[in-house]
């Protein structure tokens, strides 16, 4: 048994006191926020609020210091080599759009290839599609193996085509499966590719050491890591960040503007146009402080225990077919009820105040490959309790009973 104290952990989250009848199993969509994250935003607005960077005045300098301290916090969190490798974005989606737009013409030339996996979220598909065709760049996909993981043999064959970019999710948001990202990145590097990791789901499973991992870009969203909405991070190795064409132009990202032409400022400013989400960055820093108080290994072990308990219960309910292989999951179980549409199951769980998602989870190509209309996703977090697993299993039994 993990020595992690989930009940104590849960106390930090006001949401649960305010929603005592609900079982929240939708953390993969967004996590709940500890009071200290909320307080950090509140304190900023009540005490320090001022715009950053431009200020002669001390209030603005304090706001800037707090904002830049948030950047330092993220740098330490990922162990980035330099603070200018941390770009604040509005989220993972914005980060991928900066990447897809920014690599075209500079790194990616007509005829080049990008390699992603069949497990990707739309954020790691659609931005590429927006630009690939007009730039003559080809998007290749690593298919699934029978374990619903990327097929590593085919991966090797696709790497032989020398993709310029390999962009992979660390953890599948639809299934929870943890990709063998270390070895996959190594293989990509060996093939000479620039590597990108979508950490939206993965960062709460395992924080990368971006100097140890062979990863050139890493993206995640604050709101899935106990932080606020509207803030995310694009980490990039300096030499690659410098090659990105800015997606956004405006204040702060230029060093010189005339009506004829503008020249860009140094990183990180170059990729952060306009007034940033200052309070959001400060909230994200508070979230990082919060989560670093706890032992990640213990948390993961605890989540594993919840998954085991859930999986054991599922096997007692006739007709349920998990898609997720629990032993390779970071906290998610996705399942089907034989012959039924996932939406029906989710509605019956909702009626019993179990908050889950049904559908294709912004991973339509995955479900197309599986030839399924979607699945019902149960996403467990360290604030979930064994008792909630039991309640969920009972609710599932009642729901399948009705659908039978």
């Amino acid at each position: 048994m993990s020595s992690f104290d989930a009940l104590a952990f849960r106390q930090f989250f006001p949401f649960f006191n305010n929603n005592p009848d609900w079982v929240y199993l939708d953390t993969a969509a967004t996590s709940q926020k500890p009071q200290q994250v909320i307080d950090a935003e509140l304190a900023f607005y009540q005490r320090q609020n001022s715009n950053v960077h431009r200020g002669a005045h001390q209030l603005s300098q304090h706001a800037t210091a707090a904002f830049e301290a948030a950047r330092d916090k993220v740098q330490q969190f990922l162990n980035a080599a330099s603070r200018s490798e941390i770009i604040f974005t509005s989220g993972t989606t914005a980060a991928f759009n900066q990447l897809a737009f920014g690599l075209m013409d500079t790194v990616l030339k007509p005829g080049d290839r990008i390699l992603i996996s069949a497990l990707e979220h739309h954020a790691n598909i659609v931005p590429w599609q927006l630009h690939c065709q007009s730039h003559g760049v080809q998007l290749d996909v690593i298919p699934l193996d029978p374990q619903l993981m990327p097929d590593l043999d085919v991966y090797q064959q696709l790497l032989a085509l020398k993709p310029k970019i390999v962009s992979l999710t660390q953890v599948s948001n639809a299934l929870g499966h943890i990709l063998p990202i270390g070895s996959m990145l190594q293989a990509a590097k060996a093939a000479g590719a620039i590597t990108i990791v979508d950490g939206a789901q993965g960062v709460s499973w395992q924080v990368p050491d971006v100097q140890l991992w062979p990863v050139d870009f890493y993206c995640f969203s604050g709101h899935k890591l106990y932080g606020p909405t509207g803030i995310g991070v694009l980490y990039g190795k300096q030499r690659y960040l410098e090659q990105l064409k800015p997606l956004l132009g405006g204040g702060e990202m230029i060093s010189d503007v005339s009506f004829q032409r503008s020249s860009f400022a140094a990183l990180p400013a170059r990729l952060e146009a306009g007034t940033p989400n200052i309070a959001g960055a400060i909230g994200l820093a508070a979230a990082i402080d919060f989560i670093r108080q706890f032992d990640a290994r213990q948390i993961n072990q605890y989540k594993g225990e919840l998954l085991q308990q859930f999986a054991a219960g599922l096997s007692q309910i006739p007709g349920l077919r998990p898609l997720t292989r629990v032993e390779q999951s970071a906290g998610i179980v996705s399942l089907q009820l034989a012959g039924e549409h996932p939406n029906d199951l989710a509605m019956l769980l909702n009626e019993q105040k179990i908050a889950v998602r049904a559908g294709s989870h912004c991973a339509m190509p995955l479900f197309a490959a599986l030839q399924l209309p979607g699945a019902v996703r149960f996403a467990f977090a360290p604030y979930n309790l064994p008792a909630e697993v039991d309640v969920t299993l009972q609710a599932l039994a009642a729901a399948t009973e009705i659908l039978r």
Partner: protein
Amino acid sequence: MLQQLIADTATGLQQIAEHELPLLQQPADWQSKYRLLMQLGKQLPALPEKMRQTEYLVRGCESRAWLLHYQEPVSGKHYFVLDSEARIVKGLLAIMLCFVNGKTGAELAELDLSRHFDALNLRPYLSQSRGNGLTMMLQRIQSTIKA
């Protein structure tokens, strides 16, 4: 083909209005409510696979539904055939149809569907959520009759 579906739908809706709607209003446990909803859905004809075409598709984020429309040229009354791959949604669509089918554009403009859903304790299903197939369907019906 469409005529046949409309006729079958009409039969189903009449059944529903007479027998099931009153039942929905009675206090029952939640399980019976959903059993009833799924029952309702079964009384509507299923759209044949070959008619499940993109042009009829109404996409909620979680399940697909289809809408076919016919306006009677003389009376101007609107008739719809609705289907969904999710059973509970299909039941809710059946209820929606009870209030919508066979009405003129003017009548539909006056219709306060949420009042009816309220009366049946089904209000939450008509929320703003884009992910919710019902709202999407209602919007599609409204845009269809305007077109």
